């Protein structure tokens, strides 16, 4: 246990040092992280206004709160390694990583956390600015805020593991962009990114509970919005745990098969 902390400490230092080199890229990426929720915030505020102030139980200020919280949770949970894996495998960059006495996923986890902590320096001001611009209404009960803590961590785990599993497709195909796009389009509709899930037409909200995407993003947001009962919260946390377990199993299987294939490529 102590060893793993030491290892993470070292990986973390490396990641931070590397990422400090790309400060400009960080700001640029954040613009896209901020813009998408702002667009949907504006669209839905317009919808609420056109219906006399509220749509589907959300007022203009509720929508503002929803999408600002969504932006923060999105930032805390996202992972980008699926865009890198294709490159890693094609260029053989995976080989040195495989030689390390440590599963490559650990370096990626450290990378992910380091990036998020660093970019919070830009994210927090962005959230404050949006708060002043859109005046969100947010008044969650204390227990929901406390429950949001594990919910966000689990959401990050679900999202990281599922997207890492999808990234493994790069072992089999070079068309990874197409696969990523399918993943992201599905995610857009079922994660609450496009609209609060309650506003989607009939079977979609139900389908969303069966897929991992809600548990990877919308669930903590709904929790912070104070829209879930304690019972729904516990069920949600359980669903998150189940998805963490499922994707871990999937990841192990796909990783093993993939690495075997990769070795065959290099030989």
């Amino acid at each position, binding site marked *: 246990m102590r060893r793993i902390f030491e290892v993470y400490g070292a990986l973390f230092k490396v990641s931070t040092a590397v990422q400090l080199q790309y400060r400009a890229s960080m700001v*640029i990426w954040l613009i896209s992280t901020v813009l998408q929720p702002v667009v949907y915030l*504006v*669209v839905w505020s*317009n*919808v609420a206004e056109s219906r006399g102030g509220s749509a589907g139980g959300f007022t203009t200020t509720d929508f503002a709160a929803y999408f600002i919280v969504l932006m923060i949770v999105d930032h805390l949970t996202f992972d980008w390694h699926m865009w890198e894996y294709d490159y890693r495998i094609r260029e053989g960059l995976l080989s040195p990583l495989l030689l390390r006495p440590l599963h490559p996923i650990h370096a990626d986890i450290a990378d992910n956390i380091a990036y998020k902590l660093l970019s919070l320096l830009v994210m927090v001001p962005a959230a404050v600015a949006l708060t002043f611009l859109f005046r969100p209404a947010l008044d969650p009960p204390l227990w929901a805020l406390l429950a949001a803590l594990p919910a966000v961590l689990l959401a990050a785990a679900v999202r990281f593991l599922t997207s890492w599993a999808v990234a493994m497709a790069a072992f089999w195909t070079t068309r990874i962009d*197409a696969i990523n796009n399918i993943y992201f389009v599905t995610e857009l509709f079922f994660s609450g990114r496009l609209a609060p899930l309650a*506003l989607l*037409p009939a079977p979609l909200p139900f389908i969303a509970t069966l897929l991992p995407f809600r548990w990877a993003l919308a669930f903590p947001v709904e929790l912070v919005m104070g829209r879930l009962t304690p019972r729904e919260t516990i069920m949600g946390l359980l669903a998150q745990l189940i998805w963490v377990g499922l994707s871990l199993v999937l990841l192990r299987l796909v990783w093993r098969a993939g690495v075997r294939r990769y070795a065959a490529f290099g030989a």
Partner: protein
Amino acid sequence: MTYLRILWIYFRLGFLNELEYRINFFVQILQSALSLLVALGGLAVVFNQTDTLGGWQPDELLALVGIYLLMGGIINMVINPSMQRFMEDVRKGTLDFVLTKPEDAQLLVSVRQIQLWKAVDIGLGLALILIALARIGQRVSPTQALLFALALLCGGAIVYSFWLLLATLSFWFVKVENILVIFRSMYQAGRWPVTIYPQWLQVTLTFIVPVAFAVTVPAEGLIGRLTWADLLQAVAAGILLLVLSRLFWRVGLRAYSGASA
């Protein structure tokens, strides 16, 4: 005339190149279908809750989405790949091969790389525009058609000049690709009419990143909401940016020192 001939040559080259990778065509169809799904799905979800968004009817927004796909297709087919290649050439010093050709370097650089299959998006965009017009049911008057065509032309010119301005920066800065990432994510905001955004965002999307001119203004032209004064503004912006990017390009070219210098 020479310009058109060069354009044609590169189109043919791009066509022949892409024919080697026919699978890409099907991948592109999948990608286009997905972006169509995102656009139409978004509209469906929104209009499930309301009848009008910021004064736009569903069918009018359908036309806007068509223009969004059309313009995006043009960007992704010619402008983006050519400029990416240009920036890479500057970084590697291989731009020499372009500069030694006896034609205008800006023209060569702008049309050199064509991703033919992206034309699927252009076709899709056109189809959506036609469907939207049929559903709106009103006949498009010749004036309206003219306004639309002019606005679209200006939008294209503005987007192209903007892209060239940014790409030209690569003569001084090694990595400017990231700035183009900003444009791409900002272009997504064009899927909705910029008039619904708050003032500060509208200004950003009009003057800092010209999404408004690329999508919203032509759409307004098509559905008969554009006045001649608005069009005049777009034309002025188009001409100004074309001249500006040309001048900037020439300044940048002087800063280029080649691979071995």
